[in-house]
């Protein structure tokens, strides 16, 4: 995988609106954003209602994912182009999710909804109608997802990249600065984690920085060892999906996992080590 295999720009997407075999999908944290206007022909996936198990804290299972994509009219051989607000956080999360369940032809719109809006490109409230399909998902690809015990075992051995803001990393805040401060039982970070806020990988318009800038950021400035396996985490796993996308899809590093349990899980575990402050 490389930048050109995973990212497309707005001109590319504009030229493929209503093109058979290409499905444009908006995934926003603010799930009302789509209803106010979206890229023509785009459908919507709700990151919470559609992608999360309604009872347990986990993804929808394989059968649920198959039912979702079938109902939305996405076929196995369709090219899925994902975009969303908030610098593509949840679109990157959905991208990771599609890869987890084995969908190969998936792309991310560079800059997402923000760049599209700032460019004053067309948005519509028309909701397309797509014929149902019979989608078949693969079993979850465990090489892309880190679970709790694997993260604890990785302390001091693999790269742990905490992509939250410095205030969350240090334990001064438990959530991003635009949300009420609640959630995990404790603040801080996983010992040995490097703090590379997701935002450092993005330009102001939401597009990803150039490959060399990204390499300099992680391997240079932050000291992430590209020769080791890596686990990225944030608070609930979507900002770290953005960083997973950078490391695994743009920079083509092997063995990069997203820990979607992230700080809301780790910061509430009993007995695990926690470090506070600026990191070591």
């Amino acid at each position, binding site marked *: 995988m490389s930048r050109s295999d995973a990212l497309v720009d707005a001109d590319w997407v504009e030229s493929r609106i209503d093109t058979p075999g290409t499905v444009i999908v908006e995934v926003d944290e*603010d799930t009302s954003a789509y209803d106010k206007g979206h890229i023509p022909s785009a459908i919507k996936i709700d990151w919470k209602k559609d992608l999360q198990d309604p009872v347990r804290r986990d993804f929808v299972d394989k059968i649920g994912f198959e039912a979702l994509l079938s109902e939305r009219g996405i076929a196995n051989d369709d090219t899925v182009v994902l975009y969303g607000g908030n610098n593509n956080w949840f679109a990157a999360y959905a991208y990771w999710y599609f890869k987890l369940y084995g969908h190969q032809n998936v792309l991310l719109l560079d800059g997402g909804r923000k760049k599209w809006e700032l460019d004053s490109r067309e948005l519509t409230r028309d909701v397309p109608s797509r014929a149902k399909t019979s989608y078949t998902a693969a079993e979850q690809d465990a090489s892309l997802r880190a679970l709790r015990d694997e993260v604890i075992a990785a302390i001091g051995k693999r790269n742990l990249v905490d992509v939250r803001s410095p205030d969350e990393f240090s334990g001064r805040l438990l959530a*991003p600065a635009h949300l009420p401060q609640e959630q995990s039982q404790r603040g801080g970070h996983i010992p040995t984690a490097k703090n590379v806020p997701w935002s450092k990988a993005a330009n102001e318009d939401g597009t990803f920085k150039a490959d060399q800038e990204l390499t300099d950021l992680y391997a240079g400035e932050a000291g992430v060892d590209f020769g080791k396996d890596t686990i990225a985490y*944030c608070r609930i796993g*979507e900002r770290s999906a953005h960083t997973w996308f950078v490391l695994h899809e743009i920079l083509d590093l092997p063995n990069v996992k997203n820990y979607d349990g992230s700080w809301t899980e780790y910061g509430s575990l009993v007995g695990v080590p926690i470090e506070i402050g600026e990191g070591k």
Partner: protein
Amino acid sequence: MSDDSCGAPAGGVTITKDKAGKEAIVEGRVLRADGNPVATGYARLLGTGDEFVAEVPLGDDGGFRFFAAPGDWTLRVLAPGGVRLEQTVSADIGHVTTVEFAV
């Protein structure tokens, strides 16, 4: 708006000054010269040295809100047409700091 996500909440200004509690709230609106709200755009909260902290889309009323740590911040507004405005603000626990941008 789900409060267990990391993402941008719907915009709008509804918290009154006596509701700040233990939060340090920075909020405001972006308005055009005619007083109408700028409903398409983004507000960014930046720390020392332009360090990115958070970003929210503007609400239908041109509003935005951040739950910041106490201290000094830069607010930057981005909107279509190359609009890029900045103001510096101070946030304090228990207070709502209100900022208005005119485009």
